[in-house]
C-alpha cells in the first residue's frame, strides 16, 4: 500500500475555514485545538497587494520527527503512511510538539495527552472522504495515494513554499498548487 497524502489547490481557496471547522467538529476538539488550520499570508503594496490562504494539517510525513522522537511509540506510522496516535500509550510529554515543524500535535489539558489528525481513518475505512475534504465548498482539498496525486496534479504542484519548513526535515506527504505570490519570500502572517 502506498503513502497517503493531501493535495491542496491554493488558487481555489477563499479562506472560508470550513475545512478547519469540519475537522474541529468531527474530532470534537476543545477551544484552542485545531488539527487543520487555515492560515492567511499577505504582502505587496497598493496598487498590487496580495493575499493567499494555506489549509494545512498533519502532513503524515514519510520521515516524521514526531514518530522518531516519541518515547512511547504512541505516535506511529500505519501501513498506508498515516501518522496515527495511540492515546493509551501517550504520557503527555509533549516532545512531539517540539519535534513537529508544522504544529500538528495538539495537547489537551483535560486528558493530559496529545491528539492529532489521523486523516479520518475511520471514514476512509467506510469508503468515505476525510471530513475536511468533503466540507470544502471550493473543492480545493483532495486526498489519496501520494503517487496518484502526483500523477494527477504533479505538474502544477509543489512541496516547498517559503512559508513552510524545508521538506528535507520530514518529507511531508502533501502537494500544493501555489498561487504565484506564494513563491515570494516577503510575506506577513495574516492575523485571524
Amino acid at each position, binding site marked *: 500500500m502506498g503513502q497517503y497524502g493531501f493535495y491542496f489547490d491554493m488558487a481555489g481557496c477563499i479562506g472560508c475555514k470550513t475545512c478547519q471547522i469540519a475537522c474541529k467538529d468531527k474530532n470534537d476538539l476543545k477551544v484552542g485545538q485545531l488539527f487543520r*488550520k487555515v*492560515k492567511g*499570508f499577505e504582502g505587496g503594496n497598493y496598487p498590487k497587494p496580495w493575499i493567499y490562504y*494555506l489549509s*494545512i494539517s498533519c502532513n503524515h510525513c514519510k520521515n516524521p*520527527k514526531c514518530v*522518531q*522522537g*516519541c*518515547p*512511547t*511509540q*504512541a505516535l506511529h506510522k500505519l501501513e498506508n503512511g498515516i501518522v496515527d496516535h495511540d492515546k493509551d*500509550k*501517550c*504520557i*503527555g*510529554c*509533549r*516532545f512531539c*510538539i*517540539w*519535534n*513537529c*515543524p*508544522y*504544529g500538528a500535535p495538539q*495537547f489537551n*489539558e483535560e*486528558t*493530559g*495527552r*496529545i491528539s492529532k489528525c489521523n486523516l479520518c481513518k475511520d471514514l476512509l475505512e467506510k469508503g468515505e472522504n476525510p471530513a475536511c475534504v468533503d466540507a470544502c465548498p471550493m473543492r480545493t482539498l483532495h486526498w489519496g495515494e501520494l503517487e496518484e496525486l502526483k500523477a494527477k496534479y504533479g505538474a502544477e504542484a509543489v512541496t516547498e513554499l*517559503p*512559508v*513552510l*519548513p*524545508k521538506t528535507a*526535515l520530514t518529507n511531508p506527504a502533501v502537494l500544493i498548487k501555489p498561487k504565484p505570490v506564494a513563491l515570494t519570500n516577503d*510575506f506577513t*502572517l495574516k492575523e485571524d
Partner: protein
Amino acid sequence: MGETALLIFSFCMQTAIGLMLFTTLAKQLHQDRSFKPAAIAAAGLSIIGVLASLAHLGQPLHALNSLGNLGSSWLSREVLSSGVFMGIAVSYTLLLYFKAGGEALNSALRWAGSVVGLIAVFSMSKLYTMASVPVWHSINTFVDFFATTIAVGALVFLALSFKELQDADKRIYGFIVLATVIIQAAAAVPFAVSLGLDGMAAQASAEILRNLSVVIGLKWLLILGGAVLLLWPALQQAAVKANSGPGLLYAAGVALVCGQLIGRYVFYAAMITVNIGLT
C-alpha cells in the same frame, strides 16, 4: 515560561551527576575519606529531578511507557539513563550509610554512576538538539549541559565536602571549573553570532535573547566570577600553606549555581519551534 518542571529536572539531575563525577575523582585522590554528604545530595537531587520530570507529564502514572522507543527516541534513552543513574546514586548512598558494601562494590557503583550519568547528560543534550527548535540546534547545547554538570557539580561537591577536604589542595577543582566555564563562554560567542543569521524561528529566539541581554550579562558575571572566586583562595592557600574558612567557597558556589540557573532559564525562555510561516 511553562517548562519549570524540566528546568528543575535537568538542573538537579546534572548537578547530581556532577556530584557523582567529583566524588569518583576525589576518592581517587583521597581514598581514606567517604564524602557521605555529597553522596546523599546526589541521591536526593536525582530523586527530586525524576519527580520533577514526572510533574511535567500529562499522564505521570504511565511514565514507564516512556521506555518504549529506545531504538529511535533520545527521550527514551534519557529517561532510561536518568532512571538508572538515580538507582545507582540511591544504592551507593544506602550502602555508604549502612556500611553494607565493600570498597570494591562502592567503587564499581561510583564508576558506573559516573559513566551512566555522562550518558544521561549526552542524551539530554541530544534530544534538545533533535527538536525543531533552532536555538537548541547547536554544539552550545552540549557545552552548556556538560558545563553545568561539571561546574555546578564541582562547587556543590566542594561545599558539601569542605570539612573532609579542609587540608587538601583544592587547586585541581578550581582549574577544572575555570577551564569549564571558559569553554562554555567561548562556545556561546559563535553561537550568538550564528543565531541571528539563521531562519525566522532562530531570529525570533535571537530577539528574545536580545531582550534578556541584562539577565544574560548577569549570568556570565556570576558564572565567571564564581569560578575565579573558587580558584583564587585555593591558589593563595597553596602558596602560604594555610587554610581559610569556607566563606569564599560558599560565595563562589552560590554565584555559580545562580549563574547556571539563570542560563537554564534563558535556555527554555528562548524556545521558538519552527512552524508554518515561521520557518
